């Protein structure tokens, strides 16, 4: 190493960068000396929670990751499943929570940009985006501001780059007030033989950086942002990363064409921790070393320090490994797409990552130490003895009539139509979208072989808060139910674990229980985990932790596109049936929230295997064209599901529940694995031989009539539509 004239950073600097004193000691040990500024910055990022999964890696190892359809499991930029016809579907969900809390438009936009890069980094062309959003109650101006900004940001990026946003979810709950969640999922398609990994191999091969130039964006972002609780202290505002979808569009086309022409050895996007993380992870996976010459990196601002260049999170950049013979052709193709490409380094056999500026060595670290030897921590889970979350303010007293209750539920921000949001997204570009939002429970995307993909993203954080284990199973089941409603059986699952501070025992307990539930549900469904993301420390300084929110994304296949399901009623006179065995409960339901009830400390038990069997039967019935409509019964229970099927089909219905129990529970109670189906009587009779199924009414007329014991509910479609349209007021 050159005799550094500047003072070496101290242990205090390490602490400020988010490392512990013990971790700093370990860095010194790995280096055999005290690290310099550049090295410490790189260690602090790669050893951050965000990059090293210090508190979650051991848990993640318990997830099932293998199955007959899995082509690429966790560990690469995205996972992938075989979808037949020689194609694979790559998909992944990722969070951009903290950047979105600071600047919702750019935070959400760059979140979409980031997840898209993960998809095309493995050689798949992105074909769809889904967004998963959570804010505080919409009564606060801040929540509305964050909602508006995030939705605009997602639309701005997805619309401009030409990838349809085909689905998503949106919740408003107090615990997200100071720490909103903005997760984005993307899917891509690739010929099975074109998938590329990120391992840097081949001594002497060249490292080419291409895409946007490097500026001071998000410096310190990954470690500082992802591991410190957001305080009221506004001075800590980092430099906001600004997204450029136009640049990314060119980058995407360029990357895909480079792969199609077979010009690359490996490819990797630059995300959190920028060049540091990309280069080190490529070297680690290939068990090689890498030399980087910073003087070659195109800069947006002059006079950037070496450490700034190495940790910059400037968006829209990719790194690839190329054989020397192909460098010319690669740079030529970059030119065609008006993308700046530069050779910045080489693959070595040293096992070291060495950083040079103008030939002078300014950093030298063992790749293994940086990437694989960050200490992992055990969680100390402890079930809380006290309720963690206060109840929401009551908006219903419990004295309302069934009709008033239904209208209040339909108008509640968690249930009202998401149209004002999804109308800001292009859902149809690429001409694959067979089911758009509100046409079915899952989005349906046509495949060239006459089949289709179904995709859904889901998680009811309030139910997970009540019972992290069962709540996570429910979230996973709900994804599978959504797929079943369009006729699909699941192929694989992705997840984003959004939790509070895992060093706190009750958060550690939530996380542990949730992962246990996720593993169990994925096994039961035969839908292994192919990838995901973890976002911890989601807490507001005053407001406490968010609801534990394991966002689940699931992809399935439909055999024949033409038979995919829809949720709206289709024909007057069709029979309506309720499928599924679980008896519903008001515990942790949307109605309980509207009534201001405190969360229970457990959810009702259910039979996981029986639910999976019901889902399979429904999926098969839909895929065989035996049903006219199918809708899973979720927030707001049966009554809300009936209303949604009526609104989507523009038809009324009359439904009578024979069940003797409490009518309010029958109408508005919630439970996993229940479906509202419509179709011909003969089909219902047939299906009733396979699964628990109760025929409860008929489609028809202008009115919606529901009877449960003594309770009677009666309203017009127009009244339902008015209540259901209440979200428009939040996004004028």
């Amino acid at each position, binding site marked *: 190493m050159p005799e550094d004239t500047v003072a070496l950073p101290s242990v205090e600097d390490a602490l400020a960068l988010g490392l512990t004193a013990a971790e700093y000691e370990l860095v010194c040990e790995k280096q055999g000396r005290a690290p310099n500024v550049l090295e410490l910055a790189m260690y602090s990022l790669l050893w951050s929670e965000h990059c090293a999964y210090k508190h979650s890696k051991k848990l993640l190892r318990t997830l099932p990751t293998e199955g007959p359809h899995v082509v690429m499991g966790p560990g690469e930029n995205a996972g992938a499943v075989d979808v037949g016809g020689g194609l694979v579907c790559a998909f992944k969900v990722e969070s951009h929570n903290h950047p979105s809390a600071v600047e919702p438009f750019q935070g959400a936009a760059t979140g979409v940009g980031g997840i898209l890069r993960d998809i095309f980094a493995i050689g798949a062309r992105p074909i769809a985006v889904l967004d998963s959003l959570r804010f505080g109650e919409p009564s606060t101006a801040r929540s509305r501001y964050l909602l508006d900004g995030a939705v605009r940001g997602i639309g701005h990026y997805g619309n401009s780059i030409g990838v349809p946003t085909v689905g998503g979810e949106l919740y408003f709950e107090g615990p997200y007030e100071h720490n909103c969640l903005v997760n984005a999922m993307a899917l891509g398609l690739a010929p099975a033989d074109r998938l590329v990994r990120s391992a840097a191999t081949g001594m002497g091969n060249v490292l080419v950086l291409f895409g946007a130039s490097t500026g001071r964006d998000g410096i310190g972002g990954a470690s500082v942002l992802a591991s410190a609780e957001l305080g009221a202290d506004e001075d800590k505002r980092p430099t906001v990363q600004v997204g450029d979808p136009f640049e990314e569009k060119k980058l995407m086309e360029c990357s895909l064409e480079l792969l199609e022409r077979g010009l690359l050895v490996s490819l990797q996007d630059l995300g959190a921790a920028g060049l540091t993380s990309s280069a080190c992870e490529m070297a680690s996976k290939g068990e090689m070393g890498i030399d980087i010459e910073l003087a070659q990196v195109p800069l947006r601002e002059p006079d950037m320090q070496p450490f700034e260049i190495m940790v910059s999170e400037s968006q829209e950049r990719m790194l690839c490994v190329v054989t020397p013979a192909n460098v010319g052709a690669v740079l030529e193709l970059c030119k065609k797409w008006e993308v700046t490409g530069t050779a910045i380094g080489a693959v070595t056999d040293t096992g070291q990552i060495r950083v040079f500026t103008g030939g002078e060595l300014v950093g030298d670290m063992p790749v293994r130490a940086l990437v694989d030897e960050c200490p992992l921590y055990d969680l100390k889970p402890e079930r809380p003895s006290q309720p963690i979350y206060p109840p929401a303010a009551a908006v219903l007293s419990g004295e309302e009539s069934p009709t008033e209750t239904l209208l209040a539920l339909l108008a509640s921000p968690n249930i009202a139509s998401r149209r004002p949001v999804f109308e800001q997204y292009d859902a149809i570009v690429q001409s694959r979208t067979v089911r758009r939002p509100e046409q079915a429970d899952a989005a349906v995307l046509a495949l060239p072989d006459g089949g289709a993909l179904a995709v859904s993203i889901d998680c009811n954080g309030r139910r997970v808060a009540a019972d992290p284990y069962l709540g996570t199973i429910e979230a996973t089941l709900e994804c599978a139910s959504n797929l079943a409603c369009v006729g699909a059986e699941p192929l694989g699952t992705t997840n984003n674990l959004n939790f509070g501070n895992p060093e706190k025992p009750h958060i550690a307990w939530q996380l542990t229980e949730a992962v246990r539930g996720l593993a169990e549900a994925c096994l039961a469904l035969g839908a292994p985990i192919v990838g995901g993301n973890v976002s911890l420390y989601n807490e507001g300084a005053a407001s406490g932790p968010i609801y534990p929110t394991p966002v689940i994304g699931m992809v399935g296949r439909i055999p024949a*596109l033409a038979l995919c399901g829809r949720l709206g009623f289709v024909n007057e006179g069709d029979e309506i049936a309720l499928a599924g065995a679980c008896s519903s409960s008001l515990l942790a339901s949307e109605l309980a929230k509207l009534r201001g009830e405190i969360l229970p400390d457990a959810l009702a038990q259910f039979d996981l295997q029986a639910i999976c069997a019901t889902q399979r039967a429904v999926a098969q019935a839909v895929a065989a064209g035996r049903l006219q409509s199918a809708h899973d019964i979720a927030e707001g229970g049966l009554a809300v599901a009936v209303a949604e099927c009526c609104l989507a089909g523009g038809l009324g219905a009359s439904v009578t529940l024979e069940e003797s129990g409490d009518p309010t529970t029958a109408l508005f109670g919630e439970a996993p694995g229940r479906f509202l189906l419509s179709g011909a009587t003969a089909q219902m009779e047939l299906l009733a031989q396979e699964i628990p199924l109760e025929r409860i009414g008929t489609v028809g007329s202008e009115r919606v009539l529901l009877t449960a014991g003594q309770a009677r509910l009666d309203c017009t479609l127009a009244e339902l539509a008015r209540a259901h349209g209440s979200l428009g007021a939040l996004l004028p």
Partner: protein
Amino acid sequence: MKFGVLQFPGSCDEVDALQAARRVGDAELLWHGERDLRGADAIVVPGGFSYGDYLRAGAIARFAPVMESVIAFANDGGPVLGICNGFQVLCEARLLPGALLPNANLRFTFRQVKLEIANPDCAFTSAAAGAASLSIPAKHSWGRYYAEEHTLDEMERTGQVVLRYLPGHNFNGSLRDIAGVQNATGNVFGLMPHPEHAVDEMTGSTDGLRIFESMRLTVEGARA
């Protein structure tokens, strides 16, 4: 009959347009940096965000080398269809009157819209004759059609207003509900809604196919 579909950096709907055109004829993509139209009988300037739509939608794309050839082709009477961003490009290139401004609702909006055919005799709607209305998706943030009052009067008089939003469907605030216009000689046509996304029942509607069908009839009619 062969369509040439332009491709700019930032085009998004060019493959959709290509596939739609292929339902009625041959079609190939034409790269923005080349001047050769490769013998195309009709040109489609597709939707998307050419050059990110930075500055003004379509403002930069209209200077692409391929546009020089398209302008010459149009001036020779060749049929040119501009969809969404392509419509904006054709206005910026002065091949069509008027301009497109940010939506009155100030948001990107995606909605299936109903359109009235204001000029059923035009080269781009002849195959839709008799249709009461067309159902075609629109999706844009810069779709508010504007031209000066006297220009609008003149356009209405001469049949240059080809498509209008039906009542309740003009979310972008276009003057006189204008959704699509043609030039004075009737060979250049631009519209904000996306006919290439309405060519298959599976994805919603087939009304857009009639626009491509009309272009084929026009080209073949001229040849006969």
